[in-house]
């Protein structure tokens, strides 16, 4: 769908864990038209402080209720203000989401708040009658997100935490490593170190996949060239800076050049 700029009513707010919140918007057009991996560019305050919009993924879509939800971490000043709003000024849906018509068995890997957009992806995969292997990691159980909801969709979830407070003790990339092979299509979102490690493991095991990336943004529509990440363009045989907001946020795993 074409993106809109609109103010939607917030019809539900929930505190998920100490520093995570969930907002549900009544937004029929977004519920009908958004794709997994796309994001909204939201204004966290009615004033000019903070000034910029914040990119937040679409976490879930309730087609029947015509609502969508956002799962967010209270990371700084902007996201900490979302709690206090009744309406949300939104641009979206923005960006290229996940390509779901790729070949390969889907395999989903999320780290921390990276689980947020993956839930919407898994909703869609469920809708396509697919049950997939999902690996969710976090620093501790306090930061492990969306696990029960994903299980409720019928997928098989394995968890990992750095401190062992839930699931496997260690990085989530350990847990999915045995599953990486040329027949899978990895869908991943998470912190850079996780994605970087995963990219290496995938290359070694000839697994293809798609990563959703984050960068600080200005416009959100491709105009300002603020949000770039370094990518390698096969056809041009050179590195360029691609815009996370419109060329991504989902990039093919092999395309991303890690620092």
């Amino acid at each position: 769908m074409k993106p809109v700029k609109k103010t939607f009513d917030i019809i539900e707010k929930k505190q998920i864990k100490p520093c995570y919140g969930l907002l549900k918007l009544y937004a029929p057009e977004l519920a009908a038209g958004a794709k997994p991996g796309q994001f909204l560019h939201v204004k966290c305050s009615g004033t000019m402080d903070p000034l910029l919009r914040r990119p937040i993924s679409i976490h879930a879509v309730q087609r029947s209720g015509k609502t969508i939800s956002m799962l967010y971490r209270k990371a700084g000043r902007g996201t900490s203000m979302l709690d206090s709003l009744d309406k949300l000024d939104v641009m979206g849906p923005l960006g290229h989401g996940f390509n779901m018509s790729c070949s390969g068995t889907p395999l989903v890997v999320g780290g921390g708040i990276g689980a947020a957009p993956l839930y919407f992806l898994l909703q869609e995969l469920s809708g396509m009658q697919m049950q997939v292997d999902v690996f969710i990691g976090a620093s501790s159980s306090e930061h492990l997100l969306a696990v029960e909801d994903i299980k409720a969709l019928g997928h098989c979830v394995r968890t990992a935490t750095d401190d062992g407070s839930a699931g496997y003790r260690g990085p989530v990339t350990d847990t999915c490593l045995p599953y990486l092979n040329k027949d899978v299509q990895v869908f991943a979102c998470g912190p850079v170190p996780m994605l970087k490690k995963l990219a290496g493991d995938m290359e070694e095991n000839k697994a293809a996949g798609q990563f959703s990336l984050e960068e600080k943004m200005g416009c959100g529509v491709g105009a300002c060239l603020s949000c770039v990440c370094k990518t390698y363009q096969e056809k041009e045989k050179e590195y360029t800076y691609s815009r996370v907001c419109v060329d991504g946020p989902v990039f093919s795993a092999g395309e991303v050049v890690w620092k």
Partner: protein
Amino acid sequence: MNKNVNLAVDIAGIKMQNPVATASGTFGFGNEYADYVDLSRLGALVVKGTTLHPRQGNPPPRIEETPCGILNAIGLQNPGIETVVNEILPHLQNKNVPVIVNISGDTPADYAKLAQKLNNSCAAGIEVNISCPNVKKGGLQFGSDPESAAEVAGAVKASTNLPVIIKLSPNVSSIVKVAEKVARAGADALSMINTLLGMKIDINTMRPSLGNNFGGLSGPAVKPVAVRSVWQVYREIDLPIIGIGGITTAEDALEFIMAGASVVAVGTGNFINPTATMDIIENLEKYLIDNDIADIKDLIGRAH
């Protein structure tokens, strides 16, 4: 709103249906905002800074938020003048909006070549960026020194028949002095301001936050400096002015117009509200009607 008010302005021969343009580098080549803005309703479209050769720009992070402002250090990532002239401008022709191309070079000769290449394009005018703080060579120096600013202005003017707008830097001891020299060198109009040189430090990494260390400050935070610059230059120099800096509302636009701007351009404001330009046009019209002012031109420089 069927009362007859006139929003049209003319700046250095470029006819605009209203005084609201986009600021270079914040609106891409226009199409990026086409879902939100009817490009044909803009007064003018000032497109991304263009250089002789394609540029990759600076390493990220390229943007940081500051109180009521942003710092950017894009570093003029652009596809180069050939691509702009041959591939991008032709597509903009059917949008029915005057397109002003913003150019940046390392030497006066670069600027001259850029201007030449635009001569047979469908550009309506050239905006000369002598003040980008994000490139190491050229850039800032031209803008801070009246003599070199004039040299660039003269070189561009000698190479084109298009209207030449010189974009001034606020990072100077006297913006009027630079404006004076540039006017004498033949500039047809002035635009101001470009960004203020700034920096943010990430106290966690203990390093500058931006990939380029320095960045250009823009947004509402700089508005008082921009309004002051327009006011000062309007008093002393007889050239039309495009006012830029922190404009987000029609009230902001009116401040610039009353200070002496014939046209205003919206930059950072687009990021906050993608329909800022459209809203400003509408509210300027409403303001004229409500205040029984027949022509926006009657407001230019009214605060003097």
